[in-house]
């Protein structure tokens, strides 16, 4: 029983830490506009 309680407590703490990291982590904002275009014209002169 003690072992089970400890395991559940460990899982709960791990989940809490993961949730905090997940919420606080920043993966950057993906580009919302624009795109890739081939270099040409004045950029290659």
């Amino acid at each position: 029983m003690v072992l089970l309680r400890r395991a559940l407590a460990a899982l709960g703490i791990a989940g809490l830490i993961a949730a905090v990291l997940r919420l606080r982590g920043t993966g950057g904002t993906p580009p919302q506009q624009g795109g890739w275009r081939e270099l040409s014209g004045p950029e290659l002169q």
Partner: protein
Amino acid sequence: MPARVLLLGAGAVGARAARQLAEADDVEEVLVADPDAKRRAAVVASTGEQATDAGAHGADVTGTVDAVLLTSPNGTHLAHARRHLAEGRPVVSCADGIDDVKDLLDLGPEAEARGVPVVVGAGFSPGLTCVLARHAARRFEAVDEIHVARSGTGGPSCARAHHRALAGTSLDWRDGGWQRRRAGSGRELCWFPDPVGGQDCYRAELPDAMLLVPPFPGVDRVTARLSATRRDRITAHLPMLRQPHPEGLVGAARVEVRGRQHGVQDVVVLGVLDRPAVASGAVAALALRWALAGRVPVGAHGLAAVEDTVGFLAELAHVGIKAAAFDGTAT
């Protein structure tokens, strides 16, 4: 006068470089050397009349060549580069290991004394990415940051190097000093030209910063990242579980340069999409021809030392390796 060049290494990159050199007007003969006789013969046969078998290490033809291109696996470049540099020949190396690049850059004083170029890291990345960084930097009075990212691999040696790079120690430049961090950390979502698109990239044991810091004095940050899957990262510390493919699929590289122009900060993102071995071969062959033509400064350096980036990129575009620019905003 057309030149005779020695190509050491007949792998995926060497085979492409041989073809590019054989088609060039300023190259008379390509002498192909590789310890693997079967592979060497296949490259000679597929390259055409201008290619000749030069044996395992090209020792018999050394005195008759004008320049040397090293496309063999990492760890084999320094001895060849030293030998040919001592005889006053331009050397171009596709090495992309930190130790190899450091050793080759250390040949700088001798190369300057002899008045010949030693081009280091002349492949897809580093190599083409160094040219793109220099090209993007033309827009700025001062360059603050350069961030390089790469996705994909060339031949089997490149795949092995990719595997090792994710298990090593990354080398970044930050605020005037070298910073070593664990490879496989520092996830960043990087956007490559389509169809590669967004890929999670991580720190890795890559030599890009060593090649990009010297040509940009005053730069604050230089980083290099490699795209990787979860499986790549989990298995990075294990031996490769299966034989690498003969050649990787389409790959991409991108260079993000941040700088200032008239006191205003801005960012330029340039990229390229191609099969890494094909692009590496084209870049290496062009670098060798430019080294022979005196269009690369003497000394040991990467391709960021090339001043005429427009000419370099235009010649690459002519053989189908086309750079792209990203126009977009994050908001």
